[in-house]
């Protein structure tokens, strides 16, 4: 077994598999953010949330609407600030300075932008806020990761094919006496070169299996690391979980990719000799 060829494929597939997994995880995270994505609609002074609630609930992008009265918001704020005497605080500020707020949940992350635009146009709405920045940053990260991984994967794929080609060519050269005899006694081209092609596929397949085991170990390690972290990171951990379908798909993709690289490398190696 030639470990130079196998380890090159392993490094390639480990990086490729890690990228693929991270990309899926980031998408999962985006969806999770999306599902919890609430648009905060602050109403104008004197506008009652309960009056606007039916209009907002009728919008097609809306999944749910919750009214937070300015009194409830004020009470929560005061509570969070540690001021126990609500009446005293209100008196000091000459009344409740807040306005009613609607918490609107969108049906899908894609609908959020449209929804905010519609909400902003409604009468009585002062300001619309949502956590689009986080979503956009993650999307940007995902896009950047895609480009980086495409470049790295292409370079490593070419390297792996070159290493496998060289390795198989060396094996062919080392066995040229046998090949010569095989040709003389009438062995067909497939009979002579199929073992070399299979060897290339095995290099690729073995690289895929090792890469997958590394990825699994890394997953376990990160999971263990994150479970000891604060709640926000645990929330992230839920987003980072792969679905059962993805868990099955990842090794299959790695195996297919590895085998293809092995096949290509060995075909390049024997092509010249076989076509004579």
């Amino acid at each position, binding site marked *: 077994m030639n470990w130079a060829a196998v380890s090159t494929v392993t490094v390639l597939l480990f990086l490729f598999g890690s990228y693929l997994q991270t990309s899926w995880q980031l998408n999962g995270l985006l969806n999770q953010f999306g599902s919890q994505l609430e648009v905060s609609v602050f109403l104008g002074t004197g506008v009652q949330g309960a009056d606007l609630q039916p209009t907002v609930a009728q919008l097609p992008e809306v999944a749910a609407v919750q009214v937070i009265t300015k009194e409830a918001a004020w009470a929560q704020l005061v509570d969070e600030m540690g001021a126990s005497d609500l009446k005293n605080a209100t008196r000091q500020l000459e009344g409740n300075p807040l306005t009613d707020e609607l918490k609107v949940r969108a049906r899908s992350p894609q609908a959020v932008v449209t929804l905010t635009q519609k909400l902003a146009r409604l009468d009585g709405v002062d300001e619309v806020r949502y956590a689009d920045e986080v979503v956009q940053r993650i999307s940007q990260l995902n896009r950047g990761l895609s480009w980086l991984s495409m470049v790295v994967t292409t370079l490593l794929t070419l390297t792996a094919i070159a290493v496998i080609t060289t390795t198989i060519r060396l094996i062919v050269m080392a066995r040229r006496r046998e090949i*010569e005899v095989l*040709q003389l006694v*009438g062995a*067909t081209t497939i009979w002579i070169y199929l073992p070399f092609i299979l060897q290339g596929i095995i290099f690729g397949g073995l690289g895929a299996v090792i890469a997958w085991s590394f990825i699994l170990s890394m997953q376990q390690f990160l999971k263990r690391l994150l479970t000891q972290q604060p709640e926000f990171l645990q929330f992230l951990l839920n987003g980072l979980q792969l679905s059962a379908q993805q868990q099955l798909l990842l090794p299959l993709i790695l195996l297919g990719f590895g085998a293809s690289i092995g096949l290509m490398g060995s075909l390049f190696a024997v092509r010249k000799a076989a076509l004579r």
Partner: protein
Amino acid sequence: MAPAIAPPTAKTQSPSTSKVIAPAIVTLRGVSKTYPNNTKALMGINLEIPRGSFLFVTGPSGSGKSTLLKLLYGEERATEGRVVVDGCDLQQLRGDRLSHLRRRIGVVFQDYKLIPRRTVSENVAFALWAQGLSRKEVHRRLHPALRMVGLHHKSNCFPEQLSGGEQQRVSIARAIVGTPPILLADEPTGNLDPDNSLQVMKILKKLNEVGITVVVTTHDDGLIRRMNQPVVQLFNGYLLQPKK
């Protein structure tokens, strides 16, 4: 020095034998071979080898003997002319069709071309395995071939444990184990002493007597005289008149 020979005749040359001439198993018509470096190895060769005959091809080194055999088993292609072996035109043969013709041609070399890390029986069985024969069929054919060359008692030896003559006999066994109708031997005694050379020649003669057409290249005139078989001579790529 330029050879003092007549230009080749257009007439087909056939080795002289006392037997009734059988239809040709090998036919060369107007065959020339020029290598890519412009070396002219063969020029205007016309030759017919009857089925079941024994023929020596002789001539000095570089006269084109090996090239002639290479044309017969398809290792090289003629630049001009036609080469027909056992009914197959070698100019037309490529890929697997050439492989299938080679199963009907046994080839023996001066350097034996045995595989060092395989035993005698494995080396011989290798030829049958390469043709995709079953294990049972390989086993059935292996021992008669080894007995024919007198090496059945050394079937588990490795080539390095054998003498040159024995290695050449393994090579002959490998060439005939597939029961080909034609056997080509390129300087089979080139590395052997006179006794081993004679032994190898006797085996080749015995194979000829069971019906295999045998073509042997050699420049050992003594051996040719002792074997008393038809001879054709090559000189600087030209085929000279047959001599006895």
